[in-house]
């Protein structure tokens, strides 16, 4: 029944042109794409119109607009809020570096084998349990108001921003340690076995074989934690540090107009969007979506 192809074209043809049928198909698909785009645009516009219409036609809208979305107040408060944001950015950058170092150290402690390391393992486990469980705001208060009250030379009497940063590092390193640990444990034991079989020590196997694969695998969830750290850096304002949120609060206190908070919120969103997009890009580039599954 099977027949040989009617003609075998010479190898490596470069003069290929789509057949009329294929051109029809491509035109059809283009049509579908345009239709999908138009449908998406229309449904978005309709939804936006409904939401905006519902909000702006509500009886209290004029007052809400005056209190939260006042353009003049926004312009007036912007310089102070933006200056405060610069502090948030610096806190975030310093904390991120400290969080990575501390988190990685904790993760490695937890994956150490052998009875000698039991106290270290236990310390790392207790640390992550404690600081993942404690609300960040409580850690902030304890450090920000508790440590200065101790009047300990060298530890107390630091600038308030140091306590705020330390609280962020303590809490986030517990989260990040768990992300790293998940990554380390996801590397198949055969990789460690192969490294050990080549004569690498346990530490060398970890450093040159396991960690590079683990870090690559957990980079997207790690960046997710840093997006979260970025906006939680606004919480240090409760200690009295003049960051973006605190600057907004000061401006609000003069006339009970909440627009500065909206300005600060807008700036925080603008700050996190690049990092969020970077996360998506890294995930896609690594083919991170769909690494699960595989052969049984």
């Amino acid at each position, binding site marked *: *029944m*099977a*027949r*040989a*192809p*009617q*003609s*075998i*074209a010479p*190898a490596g*043809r470069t003069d*290929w042109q*789509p*057949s009329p*049928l*294929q051109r029809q*198909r491509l035109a*059809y*698909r283009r049509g*579908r794409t345009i239709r999908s785009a138009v449908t998406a645009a229309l449904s978005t516009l309709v939804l936006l119109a409904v939401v905006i219409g519902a909000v702006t036609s509500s009886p209290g809208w004029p007052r809400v607009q005056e209190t939260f979305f006042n353009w003049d107040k926004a312009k007036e408060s912007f310089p102070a809020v933006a200056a405060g944001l610069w502090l948030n950015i610096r806190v975030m950058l310093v904390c991120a570096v400290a969080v990575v170092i501390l988190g990685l150290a904790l993760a490695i402690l937890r994956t150490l084998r052998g009875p000698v390391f039991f106290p270290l393992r236990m310390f790392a486990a207790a640390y992550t349990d404690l600081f993942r469980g404690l609300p960040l705001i409580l850690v902030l208060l304890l450090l920000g108001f508790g440590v200065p009250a101790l009047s300990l030379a060298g530890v107390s009497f630091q600038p308030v921003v140091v306590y705020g940063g330390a609280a962020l590092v303590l809490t986030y390193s517990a989260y990040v340690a768990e992300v790293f640990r998940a990554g380390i444990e996801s590397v198949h034991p055969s990789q460690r076995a192969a490294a050990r079989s080549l004569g690498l020590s346990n530490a060398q196997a970890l450093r040159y074989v396991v960690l590079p694969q683990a870090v690559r695998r957990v980079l997207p969830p790690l960046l997710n934690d840093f997006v979260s750290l970025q906006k939680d850096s606004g919480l240090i304002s409760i200690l009295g540090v003049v960051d973006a949120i605190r600057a907004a609060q000061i401006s609000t206190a003069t006339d009970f107009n909440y627009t500065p908070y909206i300005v600060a919120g807008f700036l925080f969103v603008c700050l996190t969007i690049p990092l969020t997009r970077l996360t998506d890009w890294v995930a896609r580039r690594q083919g991170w979506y769909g690494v699960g*599954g*595989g*052969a*049984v």
Partner: protein
Amino acid sequence: MRRRAAGAGVTGSPVAPGAPLLSIRNLRKSFGSNLVLDDVSLDVGPGECVVLIGASGSGKSTLLRCVNLLEVVDDGVIELAGTDITDPRADADTVRSRVGIVFQAFNLFPHLSVLANITLSPVKVHGVPRAEAEARALAMLERVGLSDKANAKPDELSGGQQQRVAIARALVNSPVLMLLDEVTSALDPELVGEVLSLLRELKDEGMTMLIATHEMGFARQVADTVCFLDGGRLAEVGPPEQLLAEPREPRTRQFLARIIEAGRL
């Protein structure tokens, strides 16, 4: 969305006597600048068993994936029982319920039992009542000789057993065409036999099959036609006794010589 129940009507429009069940004409597929299938034309008649041979990367798997609509073709036509399935308006789910595919790596769902693996598509895609789907799945497991493994998880089975489950899963929707993509390549040598003898029985029951394989002995036994793919083109097509014993094309001869050298023929 629930579609009509599988079973009645799924085996589809009857093929006119003498017409091919599967007709591939001038198929072209490339991935970026890499041309994987170049002007491939091939007919498979009802009940016929066509075996694709060729080196890794010659396009065997891609050809099978195109027929199951897992790849969008660049050009050319694939007709199943007279219907152009490469038409962008064709419903891929309808096509796939008529074409079963079995993969090299089994691709069973590890979190589901053997029975749940088989009933997933009938219940969720075709709206078959669970009791009926399970009855059909059990019959299918009986057919592949694994009725005692219905409640096992895939990782409790040997590779050969897993592949037989995968075949049962593909058969449960009563396909008119089975695509088999190097189904024994991931198996230990002593487990290859059980899978191949199952395929031999399927052929004897009249199943139409398109098989990509490196098992030349098996190809010789079951194939009605052997196709040698080379660099994405059908270099030679013929009955197994001719193509495997006295290949006309030098490229086919080279390929078979390397296989014999490797002790695989």
